[in-house]
């Protein structure tokens, strides 16, 4: 029987946060791209928390934006509350988080996809990969249609053989009751791809009218909202915001949970997938932190269109009746009515060590993947990988260099390096602690770090890049000027210092020296800085940070230098580790499996010790010396 046949450059499987970025990147780079989704109505769906950003994830969004991705712009258009987190801590851990109107977020992203040139949206389930001689040839859908292509990006999220569970109830569906993708796993396994089974979970959604808000702590948004995207006009995001609310679990809640642990599918063994350690269910938390008498519960609106509220911090897979009892022990939720139950979801994903740092499969040319399919968790982690996978799929077809960000360049680099290098047995979540050089990888300087790369690839417009260059220049010039401008110990200066409780000057000093004092900053010195010309607040932010933390930044740069030396010692993926006869067996097997591209990457593989690396270095050095002779 004849089947439909079409030809594209790039096929993207899945239109979640990873799929959308991948499809947009490839299409924007001029490649004929098709994105498959099980339901067009679920494009860029947020099936769990109703927010974008947060600690370290906010960094990812800004990096995505600086490289020319869409997530930051989309949330700027659809947020209903925004907050800069961790402002009492150092600038490295400041992080932006915005509550989204979920429906608006989805609609806005769909609108963007629909209006992007070279991009086709198709509702269908991809069931087969067609691979010839280790090269990607195309995909087949459930109906038997064949789409030939040069590259594929897999971004199937939590849909592969998905199963939703609470108590002893189990449905073979994807999130939110959407249809699961049941066939692709078999095709992947047929092509030799090693699969994992992970699980994650989500809390209940409840009816706003059944919450007693008088008993909750209100959490408002920032007075002055900072947009995610560097290209969003800051004035355009100053608008009315809704509140989130904070309450706590208590001993009674914990008792209900403990009394019913045996009915949890996690503990009874019904769930086999591995869950995220850093995004635990409430029953996990009660068990793990047995000494804590309460846990935070964040009550967040799902959007302006609905009364549904999200109960952050209380995801669960306990039975329905236990859920109702458990939620009703929480202060302010005594009479709460559940709209959607909390549930755990199990799904197939891959062991990401099969990928190169470009997110292409080592074994199949032209096959890329991103997002939860790669064993990560979170919208932002997904979007970041989707963007890189989309860029690299396009670059490969265009015959251009693959993009690999290293750990000193971006959180995205840390994320991908961790995924493809480190043993990963649970959904991977981005965290500030994973970034070694985080003082350099701030959310405030993502544009300065990455716009050039985005521009070179072709995803950042000339105008936007021009803006970044100008900003960079303004920062440099202002820092230079402040280092050269001296002020004397005169009355005006002493009076200003006294006003801010700062020690008076004994002799003259530079303005930069004054900014370095913890109690002072650039803005405060305006009246004694006669030559100051108006500069933007974005420039002032950089000037303050760079002057105040100069010593730390320099030391971190030195660490990066050390890091780069080992990254610079390249290894070929074809290198035969069997030739290095002194390598321990475990190290040798790991190196063969992961095929690291540098000594630095090799040293991060779990199971490869510093001693193994010495052995390898010595072997390479002997080889080098022999060749020289």
């Amino acid at each position, binding site marked *: 029987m004849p089947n439909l046949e079409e030809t594209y450059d790039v096929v993207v499987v899945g239109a979640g946060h990873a799929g959308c970025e991948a499809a947009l990147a490839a299409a924007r780079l001029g490649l004929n791209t098709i994105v498959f989704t099980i339901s067009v109505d679920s494009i860029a769906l947020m099936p769990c928390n109703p927010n974008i950003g947060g600690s370290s994830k906010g960094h990812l969004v800004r990096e995505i934006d600086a490289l020319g991705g869409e997530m930051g712009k989309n949330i700027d258009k659809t947020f209903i509350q925004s907050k800069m987190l961790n402002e009492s801590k150092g600038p490295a851990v400041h992080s932006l988080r915005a509550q989204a109107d979920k429906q608006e977020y989805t609609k806005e992203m769909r609108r963007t996809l629909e209006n992007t040139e070279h991009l086709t949206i198709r509702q269908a389930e991809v069931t087969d990969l067609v691979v010839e001689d280790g090269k990607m040839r195309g995909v087949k859908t459930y109906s038997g249609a064949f789409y030939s292509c040069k590259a594929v990006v897999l971004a199937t999220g939590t849909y592969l053989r998905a199963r939703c569970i609470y108590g002893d109830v189990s449905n073979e569906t994807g999130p939110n009751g959407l249809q699961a993708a049941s066939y692709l796993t078999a095709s992947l396994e047929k092509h030799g791809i090693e699969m994992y089974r992970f699980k994650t979970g989500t809390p209940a959604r409840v009816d706003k009218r059944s919450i007693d808000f008088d008993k909750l702590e209100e959490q408002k948004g920032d007075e002055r909202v900072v947009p995610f995207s560097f290209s969003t006009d800051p004035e355009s995001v100053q608008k009315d915001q809704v509140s989130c609310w904070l309450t706590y679990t208590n001993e009674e809640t914990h008792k209900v949970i403990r009394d019913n642990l045996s009915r949890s599918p996690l503990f009874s063994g019904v769930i086999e997938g591995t869950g995220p350690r850093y995004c635990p269910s409430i029953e996990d938390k009660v068990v793990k932190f047995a000494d804590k008498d309460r846990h935070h519960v964040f009550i967040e609106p799902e959007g302006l269109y609905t009364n549904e509220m999200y109960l952050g911090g209380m995801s669960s897979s306990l039975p329905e009746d236990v859920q109702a009892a458990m939620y009703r022990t929480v202060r302010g939720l005594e009479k709460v009515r559940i709209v959607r139950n909390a549930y755990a979801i199990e799904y197939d994903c891959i062991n990401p060590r099969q990928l190169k740092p470009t997110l292409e499969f080592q074994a199949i040319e032209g096959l890329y993947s991103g997002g939860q399919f790669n064993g990560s968790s979170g919208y932002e982690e997904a979007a970041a990988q989707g963007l890189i996978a989309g860029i690299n799929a396009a670059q490969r077809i265009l015959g251009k260099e693959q993009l690999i960000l290293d750990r000193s360049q971006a959180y995205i680099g840390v994320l991908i390096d961790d995924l493809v290098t480190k043993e990963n047995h649970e959904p991977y979540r981005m965290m500030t602690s994973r970034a070694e050089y985080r003082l350099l990888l701030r959310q405030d300087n993502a544009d300065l770090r990455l716009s050039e790369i985005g521009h070179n690839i072709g995803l950042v417009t000339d105008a936007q890049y021009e803006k970044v260059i100008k900003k960079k220049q303004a920062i440099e010039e202002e820092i230079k000027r402040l280092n050269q401008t001296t002020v004397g110990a005169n009355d005006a200066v002493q009076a200003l210092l006294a006003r801010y409780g700062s020690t008076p000057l004994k002799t003259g000093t530079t303005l930069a020296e004054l900014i370095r004092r913890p109690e002072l900053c650039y803005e405060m010195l305006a009246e004694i800085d006669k030559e100051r010309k108006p500069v933007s607040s974005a420039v002032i932010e950089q000037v303050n940070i760079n002057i105040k933390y100069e010593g730390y930044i320099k030391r971190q740069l030195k*660490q990066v230098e050390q890091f780069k030396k080992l990254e610079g010692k390249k290894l070929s993926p074809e290198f035969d580790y069997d030739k290095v006869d002194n390598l321990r067996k475990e190290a040798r097997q790991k190196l063969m499996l992961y095929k690291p591209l540098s000594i630095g990457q090799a040293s991060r593989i779990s199971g490869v010790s510093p001693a193994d690396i010495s052995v390898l270095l010595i072997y390479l050095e002997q080889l080098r010396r022999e060749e020289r002779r």
Partner: protein
Amino acid sequence: MERKETIAAVATAMVNSGIGIIRISGQEALDVIDRIFFSPSGKKLSHEPSHRIYYGFIKDEERVIDEVMVLVMRAPNTYTREDTVEIDCHGGAFLMQEILKVVLKNGARAAEPGEFTKRAFLNGRIDLAQAESVMDLIHAENEYARKNSVKQLNGELSKKITDLRKGILYQLAYIESALDDPEHISLDGYRDTLKEFIEEMGRKLERLIKESEDGRILTNGISTVILGKPNAGKSSLLNLLAGEERAIVTEMAGTTRDVLTEHVMLGELSLHIADTAGIRDTQDMVEKIGIKKAKEYAEKADLLIYVADSLVPLDENDREIIELIRDRRAIVLLNKMDMDGVVDEEELRDLTGKTVICISAREKTGITELESAIKELFDNGGAGSQEEACITNIRQRQAVMDAYKSILLVKDSIENQMPEDFYTIDLMDAYEELGYVTGETLEDDLIDEIFEKFCMGK
């Protein structure tokens, strides 16, 4: 590759003693032993269980060389991680040579100095610090150097450093997890906890550095200047120290100026005595170039020995020297005690605040006391004591000093009330720098170091 060859050497000292050991390591170690070892029951060791000892005879063809016990250890649980055989024989130097000859004739080649260790290192059995200590051991100049190397080889230094690193890692992990999960891990009051930790860490590192200084002095030899007014007996002291059958090496120091240095062994100690202005000449230094020149040398020395003349009352010269040795590591020798003197031992002790030893250079008395006094002076840090290994190697020492600097920076950050996430930068540096000592931190020039140490593939 060359490393695959089977190597052999006499593992014990080449002197006549009760027992001697010949060690064979490599793929063919068992084949070699099968060719030369004959047990009464006729069993071949290559078929016998590992880590057992077997009785029998070493034969050179038909000639019995010795009655021996042979220890068979199969890879990987051996020093080199290769198949290893040890022959326990009777301890005559000639006999050991004979057995080694037979071993070499039957398939092994003579090991180069340090080669067992090189293999142990290359096969991941010991770390860089341990490997270095073996190389230091081979080149050890004196008893202190030797003892220290043995301790390092036992991994004592590595253990010490590893413990320090563990402490730092804990703090790092604590801060990081609090940043990631502020709801469950609180940083309230953490600053004070960390401050205490940092101060303690600072003290430990300071001590390591101090010990390493003493260790370096003891292992490399103590640079010494002898001071004293004319005719106090400086030259006779030097002659006495350098004389007898003790080793005398006269060499050009080759540093900033041409100064002759007498290398003198005093018991376990080695002294490099600067012959500043030819104090071995009858002419006197103080007379000849004056106290000013002496000061220059004295400033750089590890040890000052002040020789006082018990027959002549203390004068201006003595007072100047006493001033010079204040706050320095110095020992006072009251010479010519074989005659009735005028200078009182107690008086001199009060004046200098140093250990005063009565000697007679002519009668050769008081030298043993001098040796123990010097030992005490340099050894209280633990450098040469039995219990602890210390850092004597420049590379290791630099790493510990860098770690110390980083720890001081953390202290600054705490005092300046910086947010906690800033602490991790310098804590991480300290952690990594200490890792250089044990080789756990990968260093870019690590291979050069190794190639230099093991003279490989030149």
